């Protein structure tokens, strides 16, 4: 067989097969995700009707599950850009088979994260006040506030990630358009935007794609740094720390890649993508999880060391409160999930075992959600003003419902995406398999 013919055909056939009519199991999952999202919407309606009193928010804990969810989902969104942009610039070959899933996850992750500042407002109908535009109130937003930086950082991240995803789909949509009939042909035709694969199109496309990657790369580091400044710019012990930006960025990449693997392992099985997403891809991705886990562990250690070095005072008191106070079980679960279980990835057998990898990644997801909860809630609940003193925060069913709804919302869009658009980049895989054939020869 020729160098193009056989591998390219196989890639296209494999991806095209994922685009068929969804089976019962897939439809069931979409339905379950939809029900969870609807439950979240119902909980939000209850909160709008009755006010924030239905949440567990009170003095001194004014930020809790909603902000935890916000930071968690922004973090989940991070690895998509890392895999698609940073690894593209570094010419890491293993990204080719997995980056589309990661990019889609990024877009849906930011879509989910964006809900939470609005949910947290209590009066979501005033959300538009966050955006700067001439208005009858003669009020402008305060650009010196980190919350305003967040609005710009997250909005920019969403738009750039969405552009990156859609532009990447264009050549693949053209391939699917030419291989489809009926409504799918028209649907893919919209995404293909008239693409013919001519040398002129590829010439401009390659250059533009490089620029998209170059623009997206600093976003990987800036967005979660900005999110960390929501906390670090305040003077609250437990938040006011210069280590927060790198600590948050590493944690975001850690949780994001863990979520990529959580999605990839079942996806490659259900959509029969084992030939394209191989144990080697999982292995390379696991190494990134291991590396970022070590950075996160180092950050935890540094936080503790800084508190000890500072001596008796607010920092040490908050560190001790986290490790021994009422939230200690959650703290130590977080340490186990984020620092201990990922160490199993040192063994190559574990890195190449989809089941073991999936288990570890789910634990990492749990651990990283808990990390954000610990940072936010313990710092606030350990107050220092006599009339606020200390307060134990407990989430209510409404908050649990909205959190569950966010997972439903995320998976609903993701499950629809993988059935409507290619979960693996066809054009880049065609190039990649040719590269492999060349090397084998």
């Amino acid at each position: 067989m020729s160098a193009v013919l056989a591998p390219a055909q196989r890639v296209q056939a494999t991806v095209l097969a994922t685009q068929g009519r969804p089976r019962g199991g897939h439809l069931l999952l979409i339905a379950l995700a939809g029900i969870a999202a609807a439950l979240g919407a119902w909980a939000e309606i209850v909160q709008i009707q009755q006010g924030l009193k239905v949440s567990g928010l009170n003095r001194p804990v004014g930020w809790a599950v909603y902000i935890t969810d916000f930071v968690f989902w922004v973090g989940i969104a991070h690895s998509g850009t890392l895999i698609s942009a940073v690894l593209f610039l570094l010419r890491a070959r293993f990204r080719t088979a997995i980056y589309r899933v990661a990019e889609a996850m990024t877009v849906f992750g930011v879509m989910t994260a964006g809900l939470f500042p609005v949910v947290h407002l209590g009066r979501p109908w005033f959300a538009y006040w966050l955006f700067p535009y001439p208005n009858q109130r003669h009020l402008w937003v305060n650009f010196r506030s980190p919350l305003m930086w967040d609005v710009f950082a997250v909005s920019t991240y969403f738009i750039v990630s969405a552009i990156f995803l859609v532009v990447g789909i264009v050549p693949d949509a053209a391939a699917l358009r030419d291989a489809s009939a009926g409504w799918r042909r028209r649907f893919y035709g919209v995404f293909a935007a008239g693409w013919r694969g001519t040398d002129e199109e590829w010439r401009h496309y390659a250059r533009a794609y490089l620029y998209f990657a170059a623009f997206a790369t600093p976003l990987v580091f800036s967005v979660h740094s900005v999110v960390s400044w929501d906390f670090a710019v305040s003077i609250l012990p437990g938040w006011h720390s210069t280590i927060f930006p790198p600590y948050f960025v590493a944690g975001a990449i850690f949780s994001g890649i863990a979520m990529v693997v959580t999605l990839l392992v079942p996806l490659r099985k259900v959509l029969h993508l084992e030939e394209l997403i191989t144990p080697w891809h999982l292995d390379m991705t696991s190494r990134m999880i291991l590396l970022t886990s070590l950075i996160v562990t180092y950050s935890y250690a540094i936080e503790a060391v800084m508190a000890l070095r500072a001596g008796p005072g607010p920092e040490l008191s908050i560190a001790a409160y986290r490790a021994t106070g009422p939230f200690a079980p959650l703290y130590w679960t977080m340490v186990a999930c984020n620092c201990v279980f990922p160490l199993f990835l040192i063994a190559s057998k574990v890195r190449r075992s989809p089941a073991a990898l999936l288990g570890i990644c789910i634990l990492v997801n749990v651990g990283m959600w808990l990390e954000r909860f610990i940072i936010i809630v313990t710092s606030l609940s350990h107050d220092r003003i006599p009339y606020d003193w200390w307060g134990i925060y407990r989430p209510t069913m409404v908050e649990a419902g909205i959190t569950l709804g966010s997972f439903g919302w995320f998976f609903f869009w993701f499950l629809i995406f993988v059935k409507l658009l290619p979960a693996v980049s066809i054009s880049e895989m065609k190039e990649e398999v040719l590269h492999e054939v060349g090397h084998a020869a």
Partner: protein
Amino acid sequence: MQPERGVLGVFAEVAAAAGAVRTLRKGGHAEIRFAAPAPYPELVEALGRPRSRLDSVTLSGAALGVAGGFALCIGTALAWPLMTGGKPIVSIPPFVIIAFELSVLVGACVNLAALAFSAGRGRRRRAVPYDPRFSADRIGVFVVGGDLGAAERTLRAGGAEEVRHVA
């Protein structure tokens, strides 16, 4: 837009298509185009087209974003001069964040617009006859103008599995 009169060769191998393109160029054919399912580097190199010049437009967009970001923040601060904590009204360090975000945002949007415009124009000006196989597993090499008989012979000798004249 219909492609001009020329000869189209259909290839199943990248190396063969790239070889044919090189031979055609050596033979004096100035107008050679291709359509392929992926931007195979060997083929792109053989064609020897200059690098796209989207850079200047895209970077101008990014610069516009920086300027717009600072203008928005400074203009806002001056329009609503509220002194807080003894800090200056126009405080540049926090505005750098907004300027950075807008440079990325405007740069990416301009890049997208430039890509859509350039690729669309290129597709019309250097059209290749449409064939669904060119987005799947075949490469089309299209020669316009010059000695089309010689081009046909070169394409056949280069390993084209199908050669046809386009009126």
